[in-house]
C-alpha cells in the first residue's frame, strides 16, 4: 500500500467544489480490487435507487459505506447478493461475475435482522453454516468458536427470541462469519449496540480484514466508521459522491487552518486578505479555509503583526464534516 502507483493514482483525482470527487472508480483499489461494482442502476417506479453507481473494494480493507437515508446503500448491498434485480450494471468478484457459488462464500448481515425466532442459537448457526457449504463437523466447530468469541458460549441452547437485541445482533454477525467469508457485507451492524458491542464488532471486522477478508459495512455512526475504516464510499441519490482512504480524504481538499491570537476575539485582522474563507470564529479561535493560491506563511506573518500567536494548526477534517459536505 502507498507505493508509487498509489501516489500516481491519487494524483489523478480531480476536485469538485470543496469535496473530493473521484473520477477514477478504482481509487479504493490500493491493493488488488476484489469487489467491483460497475454502472449499477435500479429504479423502483419513479424512484431512482441506483444511478450508474460504480466503485471498487479491495481485499484486506474495512470500507465504510455511507450515505443519507434512501441513498441506495441497502439496494446496493442486496444487489450484491442478487436479492434485488438490477436494471443494468455488473458486479464482479476478483474479475468474474458474481454467481451463486461465489455468493455462498460471502457473508451477509442484512439491515433488517433475521433469524428463526424459535430455533436454538447453536442449531441455527450450524444450519446456516451448512447452507454456506460447511460440513456438519466444521459447522459445529465454527459455531462453538464464534459463540465463544462473541461472548455467547452459554447461549447456544437458548432460543433466539429469548436473547436481548444486542445478543441477537451478535448471533447475526456470527451467522455472517461462520464460514470464513471472502467478502463480508454488513448493513448497519452497529445500530442499536452499546459501546462494548461496538468494540466487539469493531475488533472482529479489523481482524477479518487483517486475515484478507474484504469488509464493506454501512453505518450512520460516522465517528465509529472513522475509527474502524481505512476507506469510505459515500453515495447520495444512488450515485457515487466520494470514495477514498479516510486519511486522504481528511487531509485532501482546501487546507483548513485554526489561528488564535492572544487578546483578539474577532477575525478583523484578516480583512482584505484574498483567497481565504472564514468558516468560524468562536472562543478566540478563527477557522479558515485557504485557497490553493494562499501561502500559509502570509497568514502567520499577518497574525504575528496582530499579536502573540498562541495557536496555528492545520486541522484535519472529521468524517462527519466530509459526509455533510458530500451530501449537502
Amino acid at each position, binding site marked *: 500500500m502507498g507505493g508509487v502507483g498509489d501516489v500516481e493514482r491519487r494524483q489523478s483525482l480531480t476536485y469538485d467544489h470543496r469535496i473530493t470527487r473521484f473520477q477514477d472508480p478504482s481509487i479504493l483499489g490500493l491493493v488488488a480490487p476484489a469487489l467491483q461494482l460497475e454502472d449499477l442502476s435500479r429504479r423502483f417506479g419513479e424512484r431512482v435507487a441506483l444511478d450508474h453507481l460504480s466503485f471498487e473494494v479491495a481485499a484486506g480493507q474495512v470500507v465504510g459505506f455511507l450515505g443519507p437515508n434512501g441513498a441506495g446503500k441497502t439496494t446496493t448491498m*442486496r444487489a450484491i447478493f*442478487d436479492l434485488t434485480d438490477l436494471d443494468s450494471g455488473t458486479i464482479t468478484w476478483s474479475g468474474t461475475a458474481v454467481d*451463486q457459488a461465489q455468493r455462498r462464500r460471502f457473508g*451477509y448481515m442484512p439491515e433488517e435482522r433475521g433469524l428463526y425466532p424459535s430455533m436454538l442459537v447453536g442449531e441455527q448457526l450450524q444450519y446456516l453454516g451448512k*447452507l454456506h457449504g460447511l460440513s456438519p463437523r466444521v459447522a459445529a466447530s465454527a459455531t462453538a468458536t464464534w459463540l465463544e468469541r462473541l461472548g455467547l458460549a452459554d447461549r447456544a441452547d437458548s432460543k433466539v427470541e429469548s436473547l436481548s437485541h444486542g445478543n441477537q445482533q451478535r448471533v*447475526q454477525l456470527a*451467522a455472517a462469519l461462520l464460514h470464513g467469508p471472502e467478502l463480508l457485507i454488513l448493513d448497519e451492524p452497529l445500530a442499536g449496540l452499546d459501546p462494548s458491542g461496538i468494540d466487539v464488532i469493531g475488533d472482529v471486522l479489523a481482524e477479518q480484514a487483517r486475515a484478507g477478508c474484504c469488509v464493506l459495512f454501512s453505518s450512520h455512526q460516522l465517528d465509529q466508521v472513522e475509527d474502524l475504516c481505512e476507506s469510505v464510499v459515500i453515495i447520495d441519490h444512488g450515485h457515487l459522491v466520494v470514495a477514498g482512504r479516510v486519511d486522504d480524504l481528511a487531509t485532501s481538499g482546501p487546507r483548513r487552518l485554526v489561528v488564535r491570537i492572544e487578546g483578539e476575539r474577532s477575525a478583523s485582522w484578516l480583512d482584505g486578505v484574498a483567497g481565504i474563507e472564514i468558516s468560524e470564529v468562536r472562543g478566540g479561535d478563527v477557522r479558515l479555509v485557504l485557497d490553493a493560491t494562499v501561502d500559509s506563511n502570509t497568514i502567520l506573518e499577518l497574525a504575528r503583526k496582530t499579536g502573540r500567536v498562541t495557536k496555528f494548526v492545520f486541522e484535519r477534517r472529521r468524517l462527519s464534516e466530509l459526509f455533510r459536505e458530500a451530501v449537502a
Partner: protein
Amino acid sequence: MKFIVPALVLIVLAARLRRRRRTTVRAPHAKSDRLRGDVTLVMAREVRERFRGRVFKVTTLFVLLVVAAAIIIPVLRGGKTKIETIGIVGASTSALRATVASSAATVGLSVHLVSESSIDAAKSDLGAGRINAAIVNNRAVLIQSSLAPTDISSGAQFVRTLAENLGIAKAFRDANLSSSQYETITHARTLPITSVQPGSGRSSGRSPTQGTSVIGTVLIFVMLSQYNTWILMGVMEVKSSRVIEVLLSAVRPIQLLTGKVLGIGIVALAQASLIVAFALALSKAVGSNLLHGSAPFVVVSTLVWLVLGYSFYCWVYAAAGSMIERQDQVQSLVLPLSLPMIFGYIMALTGASSGSPSLLLKVLAFLPPTAPFTMPVLVGFGAVTWWAFLVSAAISVLCTVGIARLAATVYRRAILRTGSRVRLREVFN
C-alpha cells in the same frame, strides 16, 4: 384392485426407468449435487422443527383420538343392535341359508332364520322388533330403519354384505352355468336394501367401501387444510422474521421453496401413514369392518390422493404465503384459497351420500383442485376404471408442475417485498 395394481406397476417401472437414465446418460454433477444438498438441508430442518413442534404433537394426538372414536363408537353402538333373527319371505333354499350364514360369519355374527308368510308379515315383525331384517323372495333385503352413511357397525355391515352376497348369488343363478357365466358374474349388482320407514332420501344401498371412502375424504380435507396452513404460515414466518435475506444469500429461492414443501410433505405423509396404520390396526382389533371387501384399495387410493392433493395445493399456499407477512393478512387469503377444497369436499360427501356417483362428481374427479376429494369416493363406489384413475392422477401431476412453476415465480418476486400485502399484478408487472 383392478386399477391399483397396474398403477403401482407403472410407478415402479417409471422410477426404474428414471434411475437407469440418470446412471447411464448423465454423470453426477457437482453443481446439481450441491443444489440437491441445499434442498435436503432445508427439508431436513423443516422436518426436524415440525416433528419437534407442539402443534404437530397436539394435532396428531387429536386426529388419532377422533379416528379412534369414529371406529370404536359405531362398533359399540352396533353391539346393542346385533341382528339375531332374519326373516325369509319366499323359498328358503339351502343356498340362501348358506349365503346368509357366510355373510353373518364375515362380520362375526350368528343368525337365526325364520319363515315369513308375506311381505306384510315381515314388515310387521320388523316393526315389532321380532326380526332384524328380512329377505324378500331372494330379491331384496328389508330393514326397519335406513342405514346411516357413516354406520360401520357389525349390524349395518352385515346388511350391506348380505345384500352384496345375495346379489352375487343371484348373478350366479342367472348365469345358470352357461357359456356366458363369466360375463354375468362380472356384472353382478348388489340388491337394493329397502327400509319400511322412509329415510332422509338417501339410498341405503351403501357398500362398506363407501363408508371407508367417506372417512378417507374427511381425513384428506382435514389433513390438507392443516398442511396447507403449515406451508402458508411457514413461508410467512420466514418472510416476517426477515431470515429470508440471510437464507437467500446462500441458496436460491426455488431451493428454499422446494425444501420447505418437501419437508412439510414428508411430515404430512408420516402423520397420515401413522393415522391410517392406527386406524387399520384399531379397526382390526375391535372388529370393525373398515377393511371389508375392497376397502383396503380405497385406503390406498386415499393415501395416493392425499399425496397428489398436497402436491397440488402446497405450491399455491407457498406462493400465497410469500405475499403476506402479518397474521391479519392471512385471513384475507385463506378463504379464497380454501374455496376449491371446500367445494370439492362438499361435493364428495354429497356424492357419497347419494348412493350413486353423479356426472358432476365424475367430472370433478378429473379436476386437480377437487379430484383429491372426489376420486376416492368414486373408488368407493367402484365407479372408476384403473385407467381413468391414472388419467386423473396424470392430469393432477401435470397441473402440479405448471402450478409449481408459477408459484416459484411468485415466491421469488414476492418473498423479498416487505410492508403491505403484495398483489399478484405487482408480482407480474
